[in-house]
């Protein structure tokens, strides 16, 4: 099996645990270094606890891609393997700090992290601080999923690269799509009461006022994150407001419950979302969500554009039947990081960061994507896809249901300005 060689880190947990029972051996991590030492990359996301399913899927994709593209073909940089080290941050800022120190302790210099903008901000700040205080031990943050715009705007950092479109970019496209629908004359915004939910609400209102001032925003509701048992009372308000569409940035159980309550109440209006697919959500929504639920995301869903991309999905499914390729951007991030390493023949974060800046790269989906040097934000085509069971070649959750892309915007049209004033380290 392909996966084995790379996932030894997880498959031998207790072998390692027992050898490490004596504290001393744990504390004194060996720093032996040889020429063919593997390139170690940390994957830091929730791997236990409530949010673990997303983290586990992400790790599976990353490990599969590492083996698929590199390790099975003799490695990178003239024969060095890539080793993925899983660090479980439990989606908590505290744990993130601890795991970061572990990564530094093990001399890992590249960290993939995606879930939760709060965690990404913490990590970005921690890394900037660490890199400033410890020259020569720098660490690079590869953010593949946290979409709070601030990370590549006011709080941008030289050591942080984002491989997902941020919320404002996505909303820009999503509102275009909504604005093009003449049937919509009023809309309702509901979201979790935290920074991302507020960004979604503020930006949507601002953009809709510019694009379709005739659409009335009939509701702008916040609810506490992860605390609502039953969304029916909220849906009652949506119904009585007479809205023609719902926009929400909810994720996880809050997303499922909201969508289900809307479906159960018989309300037949479109729901525009960010995170309403995969990890059990698609299967749960099933028939009720058909042609109602639309997602904005980067890249393309069904039909997949190239044979290479399709083959990747098929091979992945053979190796991991219970997982889906939910975030192909993880693969893009990995390929770009490796390309930067090959270009500079170095794994030093500073060199890799410089090489990543302004890099243009063709993904396996045949699309050219661009990493802007100014703010380290990726630019790539964005799509709006619908939840359906028709024309779904690659479904989600093995349910027969999946996403079909309805609307696509090329890279050039997604470019937005950034307020980033990056502080560059002087070497």
């Amino acid at each position, binding site marked *: 099996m392909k996966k084995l060689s790379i996932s030894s880190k997880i498959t031998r947990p207790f072998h390692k645990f027992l050898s490490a029972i004596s504290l001393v051996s744990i504390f004194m991590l060996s720093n032996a270094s040889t020429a063919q030492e593997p390139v170690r990359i940390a994957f830091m996301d929730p791997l236990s606890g409530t949010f673990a*399913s997303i983290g586990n899927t992400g790790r599976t994709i990353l490990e599969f891609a590492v083996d698929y593209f590199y390790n099975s073909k003799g490695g990178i940089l003239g024969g060095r393997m890539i080793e993925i080290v899983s660090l479980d941050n439990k989606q908590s800022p505290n744990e993130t700090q601890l795991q970061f120190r572990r990564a530094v302790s093990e001399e890992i210099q590249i960290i993939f992290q995606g879930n939760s903008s709060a965690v990404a901000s913490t990590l970005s700040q921690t890394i900037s601080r660490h890199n400033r205080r410890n020259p020569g031990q720098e660490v690079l943050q590869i953010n593949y999923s946290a979409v709070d715009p601030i990370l590549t705007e006011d709080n941008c950092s030289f050591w942080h690269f984002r491989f997902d479109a941020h919320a404002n970019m996505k909303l820009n496209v999503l509102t275009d799509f909504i604005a093009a629908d003449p049937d919509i004359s009023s809309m309702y915004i509901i979201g979790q009461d935290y920074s991302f939910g507020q960004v979604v609400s503020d930006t949507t209102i601002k953009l809709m006022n510019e694009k379709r001032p005739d659409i009335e925003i009939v509701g702008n509701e916040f609810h506490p994150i992860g605390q609502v048992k039953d969304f029916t*009372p909220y849906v009652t308000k949506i119904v009585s407001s007479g809205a023609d569409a719902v926009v929400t940035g909810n994720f996880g159980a809050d997303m499922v419950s909201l969508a289900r309550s809307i479906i159960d109440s018989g309300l037949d209006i479109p729901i525009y979302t960010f995170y309403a697919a995969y990890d059990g959500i698609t299967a749960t929504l099933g028939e009720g969500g058909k042609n109602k639920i639309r997602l904005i995301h980067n890249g393309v869903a069904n039909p997949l554009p190239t044979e290479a991309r399709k083959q990747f999905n098929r091979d992945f499914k053979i190796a991991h039947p219970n997982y889906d390729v939910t975030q192909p951007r993880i693969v893009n991030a990995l390929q770009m990081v490796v390309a930067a390493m090959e270009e500079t023949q170095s794994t030093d974060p500073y060199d890799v960061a410089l090489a990543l800046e302004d890099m243009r790269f063709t993904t396996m989906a045949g699309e050219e994507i661009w990493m802007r040097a100014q703010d380290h934000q990726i630019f790539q085509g964005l799509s709006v896809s619908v939840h359906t069971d028709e024309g779904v070649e690659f479904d989600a959750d093995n349910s027969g249901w999946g996403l079909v892309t309805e609307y696509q915007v090329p890279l050039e049209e997604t470019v937005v300005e950034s307020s980033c004033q990056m502080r560059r380290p002087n070497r």
Partner: protein
Amino acid sequence: MLEVLIFATLNGLVTGFLLFMLASGLTLIFSMMGVLNFAHASFYMLGAYFAYSLSLYFGFWGGLIFAPLIVGALGALVERYGLRKVHASGHVAELVFTFGLAFLIEEAIQFFWGRDTKNYQTPDLLDFPLFTLFGQEFSAYRGFMMTISIVIFIALYYVLTKSRVGIIIQAAITHPQTVSNLGHNVPLIFMGVFGMGTALAGLAGVIAGPVLTTFPGMATVLGSIVFVIVVIGGLGSLAGAFIASLLIGLLQSYAIASDVGMPDLLNLFGISFDRSHPLNDLWTMNLPQIAPVLPYLLLVLVLIFRPTGLLGKREE
């Protein structure tokens, strides 16, 4: 506005009755053993998961019947081999035990069922709107949830006050020694009550699973609210738990439906603040935003002014 009011009331009642199914078991267990069962909501979650698995083979109705029985049996086992052992070390130990149990059940569920959301659906039989009012449907399933809860309430009331078993249970709560001397097996009664309480929680999980989403965090969302209800109602009082359940259900529902907030209150007094005011968050707060924490506010207020709860008798 009227439709909002009507639906808010209906939603409040559905939630309230559901909460009562959990609270009734919890308060019974408390009056009997003097211990607040922290893992109660975990049994609710177990109910939903068992029902989900059973529904794959026997349909929803199979799950409805068997899942609560399994959960009840598990509850009885926990009492027999866990709680009873810990009982000797005092109430704090028991409480901490149930606290740990809640933690363990959540982990075990993730181990056996995985961490993703489960596709547990309402039965086809009930998949139609019961009635449509002002353009909004009230699903038959919600009607079914309410019916089940009311039936349970009546049955529980009848069993506890009218039947022989109920009278023995009531006696065992207040005078365990005497009941034991009369030849009844008090530990067995305790085990039965614990089993029954957890079975009720399991039943609540079975019927709530399809609408409130079956996922590993479902116990946490509900867990402490049930506690709040039992305490507000008065520890050990079934009627109090009933009133408090409906109160909390309606309170939350109305709070979400209302659109009032601090700005309205301030306008009333003709005060206004600039957005840059340091306490801006306070001045712009509105009721729907804080709806889910209102029960805790109520809890603190009730405990300060009436430590026994609404209908509680016993002073500790």
